[in-house]
């Protein structure tokens, strides 16, 4: 097989894996948009906040230590214990649920009935607020996140492809884990929304707020639930991305990777986020591989948006988005 074809196959597979990571971020956006019509600008920052909280809990870090030390003249930094990864993840989920409750209680419930742009602006404010709180709570330094996820080349794939083609493919173990986790997450979300009372209520609210209210569904509860689930998805995305680069402020910028995915897949479809992520991942990697060297490289960021815009020309609602029909 020609080398270029083999390299292309390797890039394609890596594009799929990268797409899964993009989809993980996009999922959080979709969940909130679907249930409340809010484009949550703070989703990326939620991933940062969740990952910082996880590392802080694992390391036994005292939250707001700088503030406490400055106000009370103390020198506390650490509780002196460490917390196992699984327990820390569970505790972080509790924190994210608390955050969801606070977002609903202090921000969103006061904006019920407002225009979508107002709600969007509120999430921009929330993003800046959370950035500041995360810094104040856990500090700005880069933190190493080790929850036991494997990283580096997958030896089996390397060996098998080398035996078959004479060239070993590089697939990162972390990407494989991310794919499995994303698949489990989507299955869990589908099961939850199809087969549980709360899930059905969530779908009802997504379809029609007024109708859902009229049959006794609590909007307050459902939105806390949705923000909690989005917080959990943010935690998963934060763990995956944080394992690659350390937990740091830049995690909040992963939202930029989700936007073309949402444009392509639609804002209201979980399968759309997955398929959109895969198309963007493969598209940008293949374009970089085939065209990048001719134009000086660094095509991925802009090509993802070009690809999304091309799809929008033919399907403005995205691949899986709901078609909006307005009759006059």
């Amino acid at each position, binding site marked *: 097989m020609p080398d270029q074809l083999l*390299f292309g196959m*390797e*890039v394609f597979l*890596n594009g799929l894996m*990268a797409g899964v990571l993009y989809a993980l971020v996009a999922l959080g956006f979709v969940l909130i948009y679907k249930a409340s019509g809010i484009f949550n600008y703070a989703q990326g920052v939620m991933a940062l906040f969740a990952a910082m909280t996880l590392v802080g809990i694992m390391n036994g870090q005292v939250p707001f230590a*700088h503030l406490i*030390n400055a106000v009370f003249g103390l020198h506390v*930094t650490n509780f002196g214990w460490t917390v196992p990864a699984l327990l820390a993840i569970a505790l972080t989920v509790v924190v994210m649920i608390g955050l969801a409750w606070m977002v609903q209680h202090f921000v969103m419930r006061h904006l019920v009935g407002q225009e979508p742009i107002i709600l969007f602006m509120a999430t921009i404010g929330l993003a800046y607020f959370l*950035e*500041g709180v995360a*810094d104040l709570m856990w500090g*700005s*330094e*880069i933190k*190493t*996140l*080790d929850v036991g996820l494997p*990283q*580096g*080349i997958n030896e089996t794939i390397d060996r098998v492809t080398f035996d078959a083609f004479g060239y070993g493919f*590089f697939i*990162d173990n972390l990407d494989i884990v991310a794919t499995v986790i994303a698949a489990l997450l989507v299955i869990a979300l589908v099961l939850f929304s199809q087969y549980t009372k709360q899930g059905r209520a969530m779908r009802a609210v997504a379809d029609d707020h007024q109708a859902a209210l009229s049959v006794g569904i609590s909007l307050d509860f459902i939105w806390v639930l949705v923000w909690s689930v989005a917080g959990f998805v943010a935690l998963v995305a934060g763990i995956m*991305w944080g394992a*690659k*680069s*350390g937990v*740091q*402020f*830049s995690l*909040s*910028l*992963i939202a930029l*990777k989700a936007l073309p995915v949402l444009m392509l897949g639609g804002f209201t479809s979980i399968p759309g986020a997955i398929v959109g992520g895969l198309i963007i991942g493969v598209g940008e*990697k293949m374009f*970089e*591989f085939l065209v*990048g060297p001719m134009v*000086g*490289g*660094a095509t*991925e*960021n802009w090509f993802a948006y070009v690809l999304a815009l091309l799809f929008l020309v033919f399907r403005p609602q995205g691949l899986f988005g709901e078609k909006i029909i307005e009759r006059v």
Partner: protein
Amino acid sequence: MKLKLATMALGAIMAAAPAMADLVFPSLSYRTGPYAAGGIPFADGYADYFTLLNERDGGIGGVPVKLLECETGYNTEKGVECYESTKGEGALVYQPLSTGITYQLIPKATADDIPIHSMGYGRTSAANGDVFSHVFNYPGNYWNGASGAINYLLEINGGDIKGKKVALVYHNSAYGKEPIRTLEELSKKHGYELSALPVDHPGQEQKSQWLQIRRDRPDYVLMWGWGVMNQVAIQEAANIRFPMENFIGIWWSGAEHDVLPAGDAANGYKALTFHNVGRDFPVFDDIQKYVVDAGKAAGAGDQIGNVLYNRGMYAAMLAAEAAKTAQEIHGTKDITAAMMRDGMEALSIDEAKMVELGMPNFGPAFNVSCENHGGPGLVGVTQWDASSKTWSLISDFKPTDTEVIGALIAEDSAAYAAENSIESNCK
């Protein structure tokens, strides 16, 4: 009543404005945002050294130092706002701490007669003091960095790198593109094969670049990265099993936080430097005693000895020494920004002075002149030991290719002079 109000107003003005005798050093820091992890230790080092001078020596030449810290978030517009809001406070010298901010401030500061010190960043051709009268980038610049990296490769290859493949992974910005021209010129001279791989901001996703490196199998990879790009690149290099000892970053890609996230996999990674690393210097004992233990440290006091803390402290030391020189030249303790510029242009650092300052072998000896604002451009190499979590200087500070760099500086600065109708500053 009027007298009372007038007294109160006068009191308020006196409290708000710096005393006339204070030497004002602005610090355009970034303690927030995506680059805070690098900005905090630098800002702490810069602040702590001035605090040390105040606490131990009563300031510079007996005049207290006032540090004006302004948060830029590494954002060019905010950086310019910081400049505009602090320049009227008697600012003596600006360290913009960002190539983008430096480019914006060059014409402004020159017009305002305030010097800029862009140490190891900014506009490289500003080393030509004949054109850039108010900009100083001693003791080294990016082109020295590029040449220093190639010289190091020559050294470990017995002086011959003909036919070797060298890849440059760079931040796709003005900063990241700085070394390309120099590396291209040097490739003609030494016969190595250069490939350049840009990484878009912020650099969280670099799979394509590292797959290409895996396919092309370069002998060496150089990196001009910043922020999250550094951590991801080092992790990706480890993932494809690129030998870390053949991976060399510029000095902005060689701090502790760049290598720690990759853990043991980062062992052996190298970075260029123009100053020493570690905390085994007497000056740090003084900082510990007079600043940290006295509760006057800018941060938690836990950054001492870190690469970027050392760099911030080194920048402050060079600023303080230039201020001392200015005081001597002009025969006054109460110097202005224009006098400070003269002090920077007459700065002379030798090992005896470094020993006296508690920094033996911390940085190279050099003299600044009207023509040469860039210093000697000596470059050293450091290496990361993952087990002890320390950087070590593994080479001396060595000269770079002044023949190639000098020609590039002359060409670029001449173009700037022509564009801006600048006449010779040194005639």
